[in-house]
């Protein structure tokens, strides 16, 4: 059954081509054909969620949604439908790992922007109202001047500064981590692929679980919240979804949540993907419910409202004593996804949940099992100290890229001159070419 038309790119030459969403046996495929390189079909949504699927797919593009320059003219053009929620700034291409899977194809020695040059970028972003920046790479912690970069972002007017990191240096160099906290770093978004070394050996070519746990401990010492970011790969770490969530809950409030990223095939990856090399969002949700024994259920999550509803989901929780969970996610409101201020709401939500309170009162907050968390003061104390999110984002690669989704993206990469949607910035063809 045909679900609707959209546009995509050829996975080989990246030229823009028509595409169609087609349902077969409860799954949804993106199908397209390049005049030069032939027909392509890729799974984008596996396993029905019943009525839930309709709810998530209820998004209708506004009239005049032609995005005529998409995706090569990104920067942003008038056809882009969402404003910037988070602006990602690449501060290095170097890395202290050589992962077989890396969207940024990190690990090279390209010239790096100086602190002064970065300050100008931050200043420009802040002046445009983009006050939430992600410092990314490569691996940002390979730069010894990272604390100065964080301070420069804060001085430029960026009030939320996120660090995307593998955590290795954060755990092994406490003085460096302390300096980042002192400079005004808000929180860490830490690559965390599972609880077993096997997942790290496959994805990162190193045994890293000990280093990851150490990084969480050191960040906690300096009151830096950590959100765990697993890249989910079929036959590698899907079975660890429940263990990752259990671990994250057990480490609350140091750990602020888990942000799952189903593997996408851009940058560096071992081989071109077949459909069984992909896991889609409904499968992630189903595995969360199954692997946590129903502690977290499908109904506890909503689709992205700041991006296209098929790009991600989130659930909002509070961790109570002994790992009990209070659920805060409200009923999904499809209208919210098109609201003009959705990027601001998302920015405030993320900053609120992933940042630990400046004067962490968790020690003083009631932790007695008998505490009444319906009491306004008790609730407020606990939600600030132990707020917890489970979220996901499905990045698009050259096979799955759907321009309707791309035009709703609010995670943008800044190169100083312009901001570009994340998936448009990093998408690469099956041949080594980039948009």
């Amino acid at each position, binding site marked *: 059954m045909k679900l609707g038309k959209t546009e995509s790119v050829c996975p080989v030459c990246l030229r823009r081509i028509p595409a169609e969403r087609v349902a077969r046996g409860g799954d949804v495929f993106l199908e397209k054909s390049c005049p030069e390189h032939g027909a392509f079909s890729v799974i984008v949504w596996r396993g029905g969620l019943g009525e839930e699927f309709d709810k998530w797919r209820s998004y209708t593009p506004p009239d005049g949604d032609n995005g005529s320059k998409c995706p090569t003219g990104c920067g942003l053009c008038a056809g882009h439908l969402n404003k910037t929620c988070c602006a990602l700034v690449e501060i290095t291409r170097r890395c202290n790992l050589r992962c077989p899977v890396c969207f940024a194809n990190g690990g090279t020695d390209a010239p790096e922007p100086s602190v002064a040059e970065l300050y100008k970028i931050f200043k420009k972003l802040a002046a445009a109202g983009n006050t939430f920046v992600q410092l990314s790479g490569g691996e940002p912690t390979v730069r010894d001047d990272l604390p100065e970069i964080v301070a420069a972002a804060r001085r430029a007017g960026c009030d939320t500064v996120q660090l995307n990191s593998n955590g290795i240096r954060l755990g092994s160099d406490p003085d460096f981590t302390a300096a980042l906290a002192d400079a005004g770093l808000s929180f860490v978004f830490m690559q965390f692929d599972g609880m077993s070394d096997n997942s790290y050996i496959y994805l990162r070519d190193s045994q890293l679980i000990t280093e990851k746990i150490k990084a969480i401990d050191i960040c906690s010492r300096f009151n830096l919240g950590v959100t765990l970011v697993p890249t989910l790969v079929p036959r590698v770490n899907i079975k660890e979804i429940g263990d990752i969530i259990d671990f994250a809950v057990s480490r609350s409030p140091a750990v602020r949540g888990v942000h799952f990223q189903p593997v996408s095939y851009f940058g560096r990856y071992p081989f071109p993907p077949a459909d069984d090399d992909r896991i889609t969002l409904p499968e992630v949700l189903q595995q969360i419910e199954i692997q946590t024994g129903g502690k977290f259920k499908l109904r506890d999550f*909503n689709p992205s*409202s*700041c991006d296209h509803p098929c790009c991600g989901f*989130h659930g*909002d929780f509070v961790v109570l004593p002994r790992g009990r969970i209070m659920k*805060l*996610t*409200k*009923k999904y*409101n499809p209208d*919210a996804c098109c609201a003009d201020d*959705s990027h601001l*709401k*998302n920015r*405030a*939500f*993320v900053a*609120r949940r992933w940042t630990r309170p400046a004067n962490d009162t968790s020690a003083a907050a009631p932790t007695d099992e008998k505490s*009444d968390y*319906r*009491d*306004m*003061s008790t*609730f*407020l104390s606990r*939600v*600030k100290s132990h*707020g917890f999110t489970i979220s996901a984002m499905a990045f698009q690669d050259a096979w799955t890229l759907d321009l309707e989704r791309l035009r709703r993206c609010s995670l943008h990469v800044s190169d100083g001159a312009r901001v570009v949607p994340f998936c448009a910035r990093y998408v690469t063809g099956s041949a080594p070419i980039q948009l």
Partner: protein
Amino acid sequence: MSESNELLWRCGRCDEALEKKKTVFSYLGRSFTHEVDVCPKCGAVLIPRELAEGRMAEVEEQLEDK
């Protein structure tokens, strides 16, 4: 409501002195409790401005979805 002094409020309808009582507030799909001044006769509740603009606003902010 009428104010007899800064610390003591009386119900404007019943002329009863308000009493502190744990009260349930429902909004944004959740219920919370807080101790506020209540008329013992008719149950009218006094929400002081600092509560409305303070903790109640904070709870609302915390429940704001993305």
